[in-house]
């Protein structure tokens, strides 16, 4: 499903002294099939944006407010916000949000804190049963849960009867992800899926997401503030800063804007830094900013260049 947002703005606690402008005129398109990254410093509105994608936060209809007041002369009406996810129009109140949430799975930050059931099986089955059209047969549920748990790389026979609270942090996170993908959403949105894991755990989670992307969910959107993660994994990345979208580019083009990114408090990934400094020395390396590719290209350079 294609995701299209135009002129999206959001204010928390609007009309109170606590008002916080979290999004300002965000325009962004995510094509079907992408592994899309959203990056930005803390408080830049990333989580606010992704919570719009499954209707947890609603698009405020600025037009209605505007129409209620009589427009002053010469005032330009605010642009109509657009938020379209596949066939769903999220600016429309009558949209079937249940169907939307079945198609757009969302994994929140630290999803392990929302586990609640007595067994891993029950927790993963929660979403499946909630979204089923009619009460699913027990063997259907079992089949779906088994596939989801195996998809996230856990041993079904071993963990199904365990309490989710007995698992390790990384395993809990896998169970939480399984609980979302069990309904096979077309779009999977993850807020900081690798936060708080060690480097190996991070790598495992990213590998897992690629597998889900290949086999189950056509479009994957991840939020992150780690440039390396975005560089290594994403087809396109959007840079958020103070509630606005600054760039939407493939990572390799994004890193040309080194200075602007630094100003927004974002650090380039190591490989990109190396490439850019080599380029300044007159050695252009056309790599896709993954470590592997970089090493291959450097090794492929003519010998004399490598020595200097």
């Amino acid at each position, binding site marked *: 499903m294609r995701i299209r947002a135009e002129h999206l703005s959001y204010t928390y*606690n609007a009309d109170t*002294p606590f008002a916080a402008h979290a999004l300002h005129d965000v325009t962004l398109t995510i094509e079907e099939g992408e592994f899309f990254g959203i990056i930005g410093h803390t408080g830049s509105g990333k989580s606010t944006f992704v*919570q719009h994608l*499954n209707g*947890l936060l609603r698009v405020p209809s600025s037009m209605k407010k505007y129409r209620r007041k009589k427009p002053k002369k010469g005032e330009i009406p605010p642009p109509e916000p657009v938020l379209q996810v596949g066939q769903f129009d999220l600016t429309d109140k009558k949209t079937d949000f*249940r169907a939307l*949430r*079945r198609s757009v*799975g*969302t994994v*929140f930050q630290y*999803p392990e*804190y*929302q*586990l*609640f*059931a007595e067994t891993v099986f029950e927790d993963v089955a*929660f*979403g499946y049963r*909630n*979204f089923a059209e009619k009460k699913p047969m027990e063997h259907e549920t079992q089949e779906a849960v088994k596939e989801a748990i195996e998809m996230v790389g856990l041993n079904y026979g071993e963990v199904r009867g365990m309490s989710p*609270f007995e698992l390790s942090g990384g395993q809990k996170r896998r169970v939480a992800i399984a*609980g*979302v993908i069990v*309904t096979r959403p077309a779009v999977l949105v993850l807020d900081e899926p690798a936060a708080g894991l060690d480097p190996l755990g991070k790598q495992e989670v990213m590998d897992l997401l690629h597998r889900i992307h290949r086999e189950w969910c056509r479009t994957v959107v991840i939020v992150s503030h780690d440039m390396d993660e975005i560089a290594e994994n994403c087809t396109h990345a959007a840079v958020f800063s103070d509630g606005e979208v600054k760039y939407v580019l493939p990572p390799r083009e994004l890193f040309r804007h080194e200075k602007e990114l630094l100003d927004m408090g974002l650090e380039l990934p190591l490989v990109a830094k190396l490439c850019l400094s080599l380029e300044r020395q007159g050695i252009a390396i056309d790599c896709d900013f993954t470590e592997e590719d970089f090493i291959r290209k450097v090794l492929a350079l003519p010998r004399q260049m490598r020595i200097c």
Partner: protein
Amino acid sequence: MLKDVSFGQYYPVESFVHRLDPRTKLLFVIAYIAAIFLSKNFYGLAACAAVLFAAIGFAKIPLRKIVRSMKGVLFLVVFTAVINIFFYRSEGARILWEWKIFRITAEGLIFSGFLIARLFLLVICASLLTLTTTPVSLTDGVESLLTPLKWVRFPVHELALIMSIALRFIPILMDETDRIMNAQKARGADFETGGPIRRIRAIIPVIIPLLLSAFRRADELGDAMDARCYTGGKNRTKYKKLRFAAGDFAMFVLAAALIAGVVLMRIYLGAPV
């Protein structure tokens, strides 16, 4: 939806009422409640209401906030009104309508109106206190007012600490509840439809993670207090010392005047019915 609980929500603006010593405000609220219960007629309540609305004006609190706090007790108000309208009994009451045991009398209507006005004044007064006073200074005020109880070995400091921690954690736990509810909604949980039993069952996926996180936070807070060598209230000094200013004395005078006025009206102007 959870943000609608206006109780205990500080409204940050700069005003005379906000600046008052929390002890003054607490004592004034107590005096005010006494004045409401001493009022026997609408004149007394009108005097109380005048003072309250003046205070709201001085505090620069928008009426919207006040109305919201009134909504919170709407059920109680309706309940009281219904009971009193239908079952008010007194000698020589003028009967307007009667059916079996139900009887509406003119006096009953007036009396219900009186009770409702009283209830609303109480609630508005209490929420004005929490709207204009931060939880921290409120606790400071309570602790300071209860200090005499230390003589009978009452753990005043501990009580104040418990209170301030509880107040501090309410907004955090509300945010957490919002977050967990969102996460479960994303998994298709439905909190808005179905009968009472279904709704109670729907809460389980929220309550359990919430309790777990509350326990985790409590543990962490305990460790953090230990790490800073917290040992209780003995010999502790205050970062902010409470001091009465001119405005506080003015409030004491106002409170005394209000009570005196209400008592005089009670003696000379009689009951509402």
